[in-house]
């Protein structure tokens, strides 16, 4: 087991930052991951109009782990995670097939209240999108207002969420400033804090760092590592080093012009170190294309 891991990390060489590496090592041992299956995708297909964009994806996401979805542009990664909290259906021509089980219950079952699903499965987007008309504090608590959730101690929750998102120390003196006054990286952590306030079980992150500079990216990655102990995190990323640094499992998606499908999934070390599929190997070693 140890040798396997080392092989994997040798292949990655300097790609792994030392910070995330130590954190990852402690959790990447088989046997400690399974706190239970939090979210299961069963045979997910997706269409936009007549275009079949996602072909038969089945994937389990374990509680307390980070799963990275990697693959070239247009392979359906983003579409896939948007099916996991029912954001997919906002595109008028969208259709899907399959089941997504949250705690064993299909989130697409008739009569399910979609707003409650989105409370349990939060999402952080590519571009930081705090509400500009709200202050930092209001932004964090926006989810409570939107979903009409009552809490007893808002200040405590505010501090806790900002703390977990790694933003508390930077903004604690100016909680009344508007969200737009923060830097891009701070805004993205504010968006993470905003997602945390409604206490989701699962957090979906759609390329959360692609609009940020390397310093901010590192901060977000630290935040992800800290959050992963208490929730399920699924992150789409184009950055393979990032996938290697933050994730426990990695799934590789690919489209050959037709619908995107999942080529391979496994512990991150294996996917980067000893991929079973030639296409995965080409992609992770940069020989793709």
């Amino acid at each position, binding site marked *: 087991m140890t040798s396997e891991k080392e092989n994997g990390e040798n292949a990655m060489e300097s790609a792994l930052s030392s910070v995330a590496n130590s954190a990852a090592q402690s959790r990447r041992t088989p046997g400690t991951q399974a706190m239970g299956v939090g979210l299961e995708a069963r*045979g997910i*297909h997706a*269409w936009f109009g007549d275009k*079949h964009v996602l*072909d*038969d994806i089945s994937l389990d996401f374990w509680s307390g782990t980070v799963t990275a979805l990697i693959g070239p542009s247009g392979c359906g990664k983003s579409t896939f995670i948007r099916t996991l909290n*029912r954001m997919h*259906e906002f595109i008028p021509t*969208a*259709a*899907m*097939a*399959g089941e997504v089980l949250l705690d064993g219950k299909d989130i*697409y*079952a*008739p*009569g399910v*209240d*979609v*707003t409650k699903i989105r409370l349990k499965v939060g999402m952080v987007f590519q571009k930081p999108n705090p509400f500009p008309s709200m202050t930092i504090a209001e932004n964090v608590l926006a989810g409570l207002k939107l*979903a*009409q959730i009552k809490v007893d101690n808002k200040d405590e929750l505010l501090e806790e969420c900002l703390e977990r998102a790694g933003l508390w120390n930077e903004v604690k003196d100016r909680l009344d400033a508007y969200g737009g006054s923060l830097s891009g990286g701070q805004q993205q952590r504010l968006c993470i804090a905003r997602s945390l306030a409604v206490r989701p079980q699962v957090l979906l992150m759609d390329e959360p760092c692609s609009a940020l500079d390397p310093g901010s990216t590192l901060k977000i990655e630290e935040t992800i590592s800290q959050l992963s102990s208490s929730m399920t995190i699924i992150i789409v990323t184009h950055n393979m080093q990032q996938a290697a640094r933050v994730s426990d499992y990695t799934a590789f998606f690919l489209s*050959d012009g*037709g*619908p995107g*499908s999942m080529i391979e999934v496994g512990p991150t070390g294996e996917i980067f170190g000893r991929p079973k599929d030639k296409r995965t190997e080409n992609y992770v070693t940069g020989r793709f294309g």
Partner: protein
Amino acid sequence: MSTTPLAVKPQKPWQATPRQRVTSAVVYLSSVFLTVAIVALTPLAGKLAYFFLFFAVLIVVDFIVHYIRLGSAAAKDSIVRTLVAAGITVALLPIISILLTVFNRGRRGIHWGLFTHDMKINSVNDPITQGGLLHALTGTAIVVLIALIISLPIGLLTAVYLTEIKGRFTRPIKFLVQAMSGVPSIVAGLFILSAVVYPLTKSLNGFVGSLSLVILMIPTIARTAEEVLLLIPGDLREAGVALGGTQWRTVAMVVVPAARSGLMTAVILGIARVAGETAPIILLTGGGDAVNLNPFSGPMGSLPFYIWKSFAVGTEESITRAWAAILVLLVIVFFLFITARVLGERKRK
């Protein structure tokens, strides 16, 4: 990848299930029932009572159903959904009522003679089968055509200035064009009276009527044309200049022709804007009863004037004439509008 036929079919699980459809049908039906019951049991009466009560009852019933099924957030959402539906219904009701009214009342006054006779030897009180709209139709056509001939170059130049030259006047001009579109039509009429009729012509005719319409038409043409020209991609301009064309030739030979059908839309919307304009026409054209093809001399009839005059007389025949003329005017506006839409749609593709 596999090309075997798919075993799975695209589904839209977020759409209403049969059971939800039944639920909402029950909600609607019970609202209708309750509305009828309330109207029967209380002094409230009339179509409007039914209308407003139905939405009020629907809000309450829908709220209760959603509150029980999904909680208070969903219930509030259901209130707003009913409210916006009520809003659009209230906005559309007058249009439907107007169209039905014009059709029903105007139909009685429509006959072929309308398009071949004028009112030279008839009065508006004569039986409706006598006399016609010929003078009004030719008058409106002439007045609007002259207005178009004057407004089109000015409106187009304004649009070209705003999109192609972008000089230091761009912002103020944009602003002024908007301000101009808010000039009340009666003020346009007074202006032509004070600036043209009193000092110069000293008589009312079709041409001065056209001049007042020019003021109302320029902003419509300029703003629509500006939007159309903005849609022309910048690389087309660069291509023209890169081929050695001067800016003038590029605009005249490349940009404007590329926007041709969109500019037609601007012209048509400009015509639709002024064709039914009444106030300045009453002040300026003199409103003759005979066909007059000379815009520079003598009173000139027009559809709005004819409608106005017939209505003012107030007898049964004359009011029927007014409605018939409105029907003709509305058909013209409708036709222009549809043409503009079709051209606009084609442009966007």
